C-alpha cells in the first residue's frame, strides 16, 4: 500500500464551493450597484460605469484571487487532513454548500452594494469634492463607486482565505493595483476612445482627498458585517475545520494516541518545519508521529473511540 503522501490530497472543505459562493457575491455586489444607480437614472438603461470598466471586471480585477483561492487555499494542512479524516464529513454532509451559506453570501452582496452606493453618493455628490470647488459628475461617481467595489470584493476575499501564500497576496493586492494602473493608462488614451474616462483619475479623482477617504470608509464599512459574523462564528459556533485550525495555532495539536503528551519542543519543531514548508515529519520525529503511521493511527483512534470518552488532558 503506498504512502498516503503519494496520493493527491483533496482538501476536505473543497474551496471550489467557497469559490462559487464568492463568485455570486462579487457579481451581486457589482450588479446591484448598477441597479441602485439605475433607480436614480429613471431606469433609462444608463450604466453607472464606463463600458470598459464593466468588461474588465470579471476578467482582470476580480478573477485572479478566485483562482488562487481555488488552487492554493488550505484550511487545514495535508497532514492534519489525514489525521482527522472525519473532516471530510463537512463535504459529504454538504455543510459548506448549504442554502443558508449561499443565501448568506448573496445577502452580503446586496448589503455591500447598498453600503457602497449609499455612502459614495452621499459623500461625493452635491457639494464640491475638492478644494478648487469642482463638483463630481457622472464620470467621477462611476470611478469612485467602481474603486470601492474592486476594493470591497478583493478584501472580502482576503477575509475568506485561510492560507496566505505570496501568491494570494500578489493576486489580491495586485488586482486592486491593476485597477488603478488601468485607470491611469486608459485615461491617457485620447477621448475618442476613452470618452468619459479621459484623465478622470489623474485630473479629477486622485487630487481629491474626499475620494480617498470615501474609498477607505466604504471598504471598512462593507467588511464590518462579514468580519463580525466570522469573529462570532469562529468563537461560538465553530465549524470542524475552524476547531482544528485553532488547535493547531494554540499548540495543542499533538500526539495523543498513546495517551502521552508530546514534548513541547518536538511539537514546536514540527510546527516550525511545517511553516518553512517541509513536507514530512518522517525522519526526525522521535515519537510515534510518523507519516507512515497514519493508517495505524486511524485504527488506534477507532479503538479509543470504542473504549469510551477520553479524559480531558489538554
Amino acid at each position, binding site marked *: 500500500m503506498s504512502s498516503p503522501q503519494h496520493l493527491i490530497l483533496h482538501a476536505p472543505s473543497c474551496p471550489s464551493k467557497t469559490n462559487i459562493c464568492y463568485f455570486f457575491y462579487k457579481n451581486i455586489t457589482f450588479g446591484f450597484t448598477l441597479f441602485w444607480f439605475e433607480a436614480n437614472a429613471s431606469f433609462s438603461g444608463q450604466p453607472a460605469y464606463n463600458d470598459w470598466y464593466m468588461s474588465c471586471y470579471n476578467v482582470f480585477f476580480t478573477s485572479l484571487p478566485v483562482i488562487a483561492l481555488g488552487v492554493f487555499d488550505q484550511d487545514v494542512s495535508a497532514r492534519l487532513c489525514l489525521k482527522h479524516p*472525519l473532516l471530510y464529513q463537512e463535504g459529504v454532509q454538504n455543510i459548506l454548500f448549504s442554502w443558508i451559506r449561499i443565501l448568506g453570501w448573496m445577502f452580503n452582496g446586496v448589503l455591500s452594494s447598498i453600503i457602497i452606493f449609499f455612502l459614495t453618493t452621499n459623500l461625493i455628490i452635491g457639494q464640491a469634492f475638492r478644494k478648487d470647488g469642482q463638483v463630481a459628475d457622472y464620470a467621477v461617481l462611476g470611478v469612485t463607486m467602481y474603486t470601492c467595489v474592486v476594493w470591497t470584493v478583493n478584501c472580502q476575499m482576503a477575509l475568506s482565505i485561510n492560507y496566505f501564500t505570496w501568491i494570494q497576496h500578489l493576486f489580491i493586492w495586485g488586482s486592486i493595483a491593476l485597477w488603478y494602473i488601468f485607470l491611469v493608462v486608459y485615461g491617457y488614451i*485620447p477621448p475618442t476612445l476613452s470618452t468619459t474616462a479621459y484623465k478622470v483619475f489623474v485630473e479629477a479623482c486622485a487630487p481629491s*482627498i474626499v475620494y480617498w477617504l470615501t474609498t477607505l470608509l466604504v471598504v*471598512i464599512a462593507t467588511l464590518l458585517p462579514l468580519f463580525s459574523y466570522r469573529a462570532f462564528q469562529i*468563537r461560538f459556533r465553530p465549524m470542524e475545520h475552524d476547531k482544528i485550525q485553532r*488547535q493547531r495555532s494554540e499548540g*495543542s495539536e499533538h500526539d495523543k494516541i498513546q495517551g502521552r503528551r508530546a514534548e513541547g519542543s518536538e511539537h514546536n519543531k514540527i510546527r516550525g518545519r511545517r511553516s518553512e*514548508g517541509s513536507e514530512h515529519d518522517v525522519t526526525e520525529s522521535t515519537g510515534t508521529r510518523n507519516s507512515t503511521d497514519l493508517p495505524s493511527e486511524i485504527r488506534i483512534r477507532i479503538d479509543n473511540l470504542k473504549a469510551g470518552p477520553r479524559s480531558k488532558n*489538554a
Partner: protein
Amino acid sequence: MSSNTPSSSAGGVGSADAAAPRRNSKRPKYSKFTQQELPACKPILTPRWVISAFLLVSIVFIPIGVVSLFASRDVVEIIDRYETACVPQNFSNDKVSFIQSAVDKTCNRTLTVKKLMKQPIYVYYQLDNFYQNHRRYVKSRSDSQLKDNSSWNDVSSCKPEDMSNDQPIVPCGLIAWSLFNDTYNFSLNNQQLAVNKKDISWKSDRDKKFGKDVFPKNFQNGTLIGGNRLDPSVPLSEQEDLIVWMRTAALPTFRKLYGKIERDLQPNEVIQVTLLNNYNTYSFNGKKKLVLSTTSWLGGKNDFLGIAYLTVGGLCFFLALSFTVVYLVKPRQLGDPSYLSWNRNPAGH
C-alpha cells in the same frame, strides 16, 4: 513499523542506482509550489486579533471624523431657492406659460452673509429633478463634432437635435440644446461684484474635448428653443458654460459651477442678486437654487463625511467592547480536541 517501510527502503535502495533508467516515473518534480507547501501565514480570528482590529479601526476613524467635521463647519454656504419666488403673482398658477412667454424675467433676490466668507467664493446653480443621467440624454451628443472642425457634419448620434432647417447644428444634441440660461449679477452696496467665469471647467475638457477651431453654427435656430444661445464668434474651447453643462451630472439633483467671486464677504453684508429667470424647470417640477459656497481643504460643506466616519468608528469601538465583554464572560476552553464533534460523540455521528 507499517508495511510502508519495506517498500520505501526498497525504493530507497533502488532509487540510488536506478535514478537514470527510471525516467518514466510519473512522479512530478518536487517543488514547494507544486506540492502546495509554500510558506504561508494562516491567520485565525482569535479574540486578540478581533478586538485589536476593531480598536484599530476606531482609533483611526474617530479622529478622521472629528477633523472632517471641523473642516466642514468652516465652510460657509448660502443656498437660495428661487424658482417659485421668481414667478410674478399673476402667473403663479401657470408657470409654464410664464416661462415660455416674452415677459421680463428679471428677479431680485437678497442674500445675507452670516459668517466671514473668504475668497474665492464659488457660485453654483443647483437643479433638482433634472435627469442629466438619462441614457438617451447622455447619448445625444457628438464628441467628434465638438473636437474637430472637420467633423462638423457628424451629427448622427445627436437625434432629435441634429439638424435644423436641413443644416447640421454645431454643437448638436440634447445636452447642448438644453444649456442652462439663467444669469446672475451680484452687487454689494450698489457696487458690482465681479464674477470670474474663467477656468470653471476641467482643463482636459477645454484642451482636448472641445476644439479651438469649432464655432457654434445653426444653434438654437429651430422652433423650440431649449436653452441658452451661443456666441458664434467664440470657439467651443472658450465657451465654458457649455463645457461645464456638457459634463453630465451623476444624479437628478446636481450643482454646476457658475463662477467665482474673488473678494471676501464680511458677516452681515447684504448681497443683491439680479437674476434672469429664463430656464424652464416648471414643465417637470424641477427646482432651481443659487448657491454661494467657500471651500476647505476637503471641499464643500460635507457634514456627512465626518458623521459617517464617527459612526463607523464608534460602531467599531462598541463592537470591540462587546466582544471583550463576551470573551470575558463566556471564556471558552481553548484548543481542546475533545470538542471536535467526532470526539464528543464517540458512539456515533
